[in-house]
């Protein structure tokens, strides 16, 4: 029967549209348990490819007849081998084009909503890794916030919209993925903004993002209003866009809160984290829509594929905002933390400009889930 390639974009649509899919993941058990293609309605079978080299007969009765089957591996090669054997055995199957590496890099732009004067806000969902970037489009200008390494996607999107990227901003110095902010600024002539407290060791020049800084985008009255909210890092800064949206970076997520330990200062920063969440955010309007820099589980996606929820709802539903006792809170965010993101020290050094790994090395460094939250 037939074997087809399925692109990361096609798989992303299946996630967002809540479609069914059966995933035969032929990577090692460790890799599969650590990180996989997640969907609300996806079923899984994990058999390493090296157990299938002599034949696939042993797994034929474990594969469904009534669902699409997608074979997944790290880079594509092994999934093609297994998919070929399955198709020779009479099945219709697909393999994931480019494997988990390509899945990790796929960005899906989704419109979040309208801003003043006909402006628009877009969220770029990096569905395989759980990173969220943003673009504010207003008049003939645009600003990108927390852009990831795949800078072409943002630059091309701006071209399609006939706007010029004027500003690239990072809410903090990222530890789980390589920022595209500096590169976008170089390519487009945009200003690159970074919180100065996260930038003490950087090797390049930047515009300091300070508390109360206002950045205007376009001719209309869209302001990006910086709010200093330390805790995940010492410089972590949130943005209030157009008095409607609160971009929380890695401080507050939909179903969890930021972890304070990725720069090695958990004990020092836990007080800042609590103050940012329980005091600074508490003073803001409940109607603000929280837009974080990450999601961790696919359940955090809304029906339209966006990730976002009203601040008032999060104060009711997010466990991390409802720990009354300070000691319990301190324990929660400093003890029993999940493992750190892959290569997080090297990623931080790359984002500081201290090291310049080539693109293949950068892809390797970013393998795996983001792991910026504590639940």
């Amino acid at each position, binding site marked *: 029967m037939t074997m087809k390639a399925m692109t990361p974009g096609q798989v992303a649509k299946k996630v967002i549209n809540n479609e069914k899919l059966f995933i035969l993941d032929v990577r*090692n*058990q*460790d*890799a599969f348990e650590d990180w996989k293609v997640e969907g609300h309605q996806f079923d899984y079978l994990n058999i*390493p*490819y*090296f*157990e299938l*080299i002599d034949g696939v007969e042993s797994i034929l009765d474990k594969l469904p007849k009534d669902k699409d089957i997608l074979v997944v*591996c*790290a*880079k594509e*090669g*092994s999934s093609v*081998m297994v998919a070929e054997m399955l198709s020779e055995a009479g099945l219709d199957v697909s393999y994931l084009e480019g494997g988990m590496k390509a899945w990790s890099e796929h960005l899906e732009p989704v419109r979040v909503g309208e801003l003043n004067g006909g402006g628009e806000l877009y969220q770029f969902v990096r569905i395989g890794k759980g990173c969220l970037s943003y673009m504010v489009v207003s008049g003939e200008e645009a600003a990108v916030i927390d852009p990831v390494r795949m800078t072409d996607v943002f630059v091309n999107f701006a071209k399609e919209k006939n706007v010029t990227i004027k500003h690239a901003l990072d809410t903090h110095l990222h530890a789980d993925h390589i920022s595209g902010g500096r590169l976008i600024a170089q390519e487009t002539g945009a200003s690159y903004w970074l919180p100065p407290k996260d930038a003490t060791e950087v090797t390049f020049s930047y515009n300091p993002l300070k508390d109360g800084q206002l950045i205007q985008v376009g001719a209309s009255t869209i302001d990006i209003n910086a709010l200093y909210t330390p805790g995940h890092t010492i410089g972590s800064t949130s943005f209030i866009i157009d008095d409607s949206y609160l971009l929380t970076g890695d401080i507050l997520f939909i179903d969890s809160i930021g972890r304070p330990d990725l720069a090695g200062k958990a004990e020092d920063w836990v007080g800042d984290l609590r103050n940012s969440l329980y005091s600074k955010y508490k003073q803001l309007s409940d109607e603000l829509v929280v837009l974080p820099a990450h999601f961790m589980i696919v359940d955090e996606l809304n029906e339209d594929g966006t990730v976002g929820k009203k601040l008032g709802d999060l104060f009711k539903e997010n466990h991390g905002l409802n720990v009354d006792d300070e000691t319990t809170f301190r324990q929660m965010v400093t003890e029993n933390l999940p493992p750190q993101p892959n290569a997080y020290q090297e990623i931080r050094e790359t984002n500081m400009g201290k090291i310049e790994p080539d693109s293949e090395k950068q892809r*390797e460094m970013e393998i795996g889930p983001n792991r910026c939250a504590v639940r």
Partner: protein
Amino acid sequence: MEATKVLDAKGLACPMPIVRTKKAIAELQTGDILEIHTTDQGSKSDLTAWAKSGGHEILKDVEEDGVIKFWVKKGE
């Protein structure tokens, strides 16, 4: 370390290093040592998992100038 056989899998992408390794080890006797050279970074975790599931033992691995070398002792 004295290898019974050396397998050059340099330049090959996944899954070929493991496919060749599996074939090469099938031709050896229990206790024999297969030395494998590969340039595929993913081989490290894959060979480790494969050896474990097949009852073989990785005696040593080194990386020199982008080439990863493994010494695998064939199991029962």
